[in-house]
């Protein structure tokens, strides 16, 4: 049964299970794996885990090469573990043998939980220069419990409104500059027989993201977030309710049967010109390109009404980071690699291969769509509240938000009721004091 070659020696055995050793002794002998010491001079292999096939392709497409050329004694191997089960796989991987040296980990709640588990090493002092990173980016990789940094930020996501330029041109429409204009534009598009807006209404997380694009400024932008985290206001506040109401206000302009639209379908609907606008994340630039549709599009931020508490904002959030396993056997090599991941050289290569927004400065974005979105992000970023603060426990605030907005669209709920439900849901675990660090 051992005919398949073994690449990694098996390392440690768990003392916890010592009681079983007698019964299972024979099986251990059967397995016949012996730890073989690395011959001196051979390069050290660092194993990196990620949930993203895209990230692996980008890294293996000329990015890691640059590092390995400069550091011939270090080999980097990237393993992808499927997204849906990533956290479970990483829990076992970080706690047992044969795990990663460095692992991509999602920002905010997830990284805080892994930090608490004691299986990650804080890297505040390992990275020699944090100066290039923005506060928004570092907030995403700082553990809530001890306030230490546990990962090098991978990148940022922003969420804005994509619009189909061909449809806008054909109808003689300009990008709206006020909320009223946004509604007027939607009305005209609707009259022409095209669906004005598409949202992946079957996916709770995507509804929450679209809702954030539309509602962040209506709620009060970064100021509201600050007050919310300080415990001065909660989600049943008038401004918060009003931001949910926007989802009701745009309902007439949504594609038909919006609650059955999946993420894939939303991309296709927008890319084939069946809908004119799509509030979504920067990652869609790659999705549209991969789909292979002939699409001429642009982006804008949701315009605000003068009565709203905030000016126009660009919704943004930290998109994971590279963390250091506490069990790594090559802490020195891992430190070298992490410092490279934190460098402007890496950020320049990676952001452009991935077509995403970098977490640090010193990067020139080549993709015109991403560059445009990046400029807006630099001008007026506002953190995605649901992702940054409402995912440290269950239920996730974003999940209830999605479910409640579905209910609004199905005629079973109103905005105030939805706000109540979301606040009640997060009350199960949310405590502003936890964010005091």
């Amino acid at each position: 049964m051992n005919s398949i070659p073994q690449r990694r020696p098996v390392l440690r055995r768990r003392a916890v299970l010592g009681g079983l050793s007698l019964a299972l002794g024979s099986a251990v002998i059967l397995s016949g794996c012996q730890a073989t010491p690395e011959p001196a001079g051979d390069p050290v292999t660092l194993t990196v885990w990620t949930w993203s096939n895209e990230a692996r392709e980008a890294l293996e497409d000329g990015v890691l090469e640059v590092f390995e050329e400069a550091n011939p004694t270090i080999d980097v191997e990237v393993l992808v573990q499927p997204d849906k089960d990533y956290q479970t796989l990483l829990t076992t991987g970080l706690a047992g043998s044969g795990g990663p040296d460095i692992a991509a980990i999602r920002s905010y709640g997830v990284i805080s939980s892994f930090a608490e588990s004691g299986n990650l090493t804080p890297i505040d002092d390992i990275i020699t220069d944090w100066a290039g990173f923005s506060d928004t980016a570092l907030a995403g990789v700082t553990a809530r419990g001890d306030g230490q940094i546990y990962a090098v930020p991978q990148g940022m996501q922003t969420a804005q409104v994509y619009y189909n330029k061909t449809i806008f041109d054909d109808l003689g429409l300009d990008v709206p500059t006020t909320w009223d204009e946004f509604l007027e534009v939607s009305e005209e598009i609707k009259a022409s027989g095209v669906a004005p807006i598409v949202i992946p209404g079957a996916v709770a997380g995507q509804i929450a993201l679209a809702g954030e694009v539309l509602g962040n400024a209506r709620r009060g932008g970064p100021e509201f977030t600050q007050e919310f985290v300080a415990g001065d206001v909660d989600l049943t506040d008038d401004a918060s309710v009003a931001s949910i109401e926007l989802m009701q206000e745009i309902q007439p302009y949504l594609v038909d049967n919006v609650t059955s639209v999946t993420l894939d379908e939303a991309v296709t609907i927008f890319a084939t010109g069946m809908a004119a606008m799509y509030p979504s994340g920067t990652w869609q630039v790659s999705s549209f390109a991969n789909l292979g549709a002939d699409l001429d599009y642009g982006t804008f931020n949701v315009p605000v009404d003068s009565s709203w508490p905030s000016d126009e904002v660009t919704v943004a959030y930290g998109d994971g980071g590279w963390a250091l396993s506490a069990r790594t056997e090559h802490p020195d090599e891992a430190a070298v690699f992490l410092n490279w991941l934190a460098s402007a050289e890496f950020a320049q290569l990676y952001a452009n291969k991935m077509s995403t927004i970098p977490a640090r400065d010193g990067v020139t974005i080549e993709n015109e769509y991403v560059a445009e979105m990046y400029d807006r992000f630099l001008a007026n970023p506002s953190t995605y509240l649901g992702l940054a603060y409402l995912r440290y426990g269950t239920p996730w605030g974003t999940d209830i938000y999605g479910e409640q907005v579905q209910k609004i669209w199905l005629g079973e709920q109103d905005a105030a009721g939805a706000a109540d439900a979301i606040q009640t849901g997060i009350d199960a675990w949310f405590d502003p004091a936890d964010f005091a660090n």
Partner: protein
Amino acid sequence: MTAKSTFDAKRPHPVVIAAFIIPAFVLFAVILLYPMAAALGFSLFEFKGGLNIVGFNWFQNFVVLFTQEPYVTQLPRAFAHNLAILVGTLILQNSIGLFLAVQLQRFGPLRRVFQVLYTTPYLVSPLVVGYLWTLLLSPTFGPVNAALRAVGLDALALPWLGDPKTALPVLILVSVWQWIGFPVLLYGAALAGQSPEIHEAASIDGASGWKRFVHITLPLLTPVIGTVSILTFIGAMESFTLPYAFGGATGSPAGATDVLSLLFFRESFHSGASNALGMSSAVATVLFLFILGGAVIARRLLGRYEENLT
């Protein structure tokens, strides 16, 4: 061997019994039972990040599960959906499966072709099946609604998976459709094992086909029907992949397809919650105890019925 001398068909020598059972028991106990018991034990602990145990906290996780929002609303709702899936699949899978199996018995070599065809949905992983049906049932691009409109049945061209009223029934139908090969094959195997002499005798006695089915075939099939039903029950209570593929982790739309396993998934490490392992294990323990109770009762009823038969 030793048992030969006793001539007791029901009681061979203990060594023979042990030799038959111990290999299965050892493998089962070490590789499956022990990890399962350990996993259920997690529900009695509080964790702080991953596997980091804070301490033993008795039944605190269960108290939270049964007294706090959102669990007090989500748990019964998910439970009700599991029961609906159970009732739906139990009735449809058994009746359609039995019908098809009985019909196929009369086919010669063609039977094998049908058995293969009916089982193909099972060969594809449920995740992919879920995606395929999402494509096929899409109100925007899907061929199902296009076909319905083409034949003038516009009223039936519904947003199948986007409407809380239709999402769960569609889920049940797809699940039955995927698993139908199981009862078809198992009932087929059981029918093939029935001794033809009994039927021939009954036929000579002049019993009609329907009568013979009800009085001879069906009672002889009962143990297998019971087995299929218990497995259906377990499958329905644990169904995860198809609901996940259809409605994501939240049981979209508006929680209409939320089931216990999704609740478990949302509580697990995926959530990033500190005590994820404690709470998700508590959900799993509740699920386990319920299924165990149901299965034991079902088994007992079945056992009683079988005793009556012999």
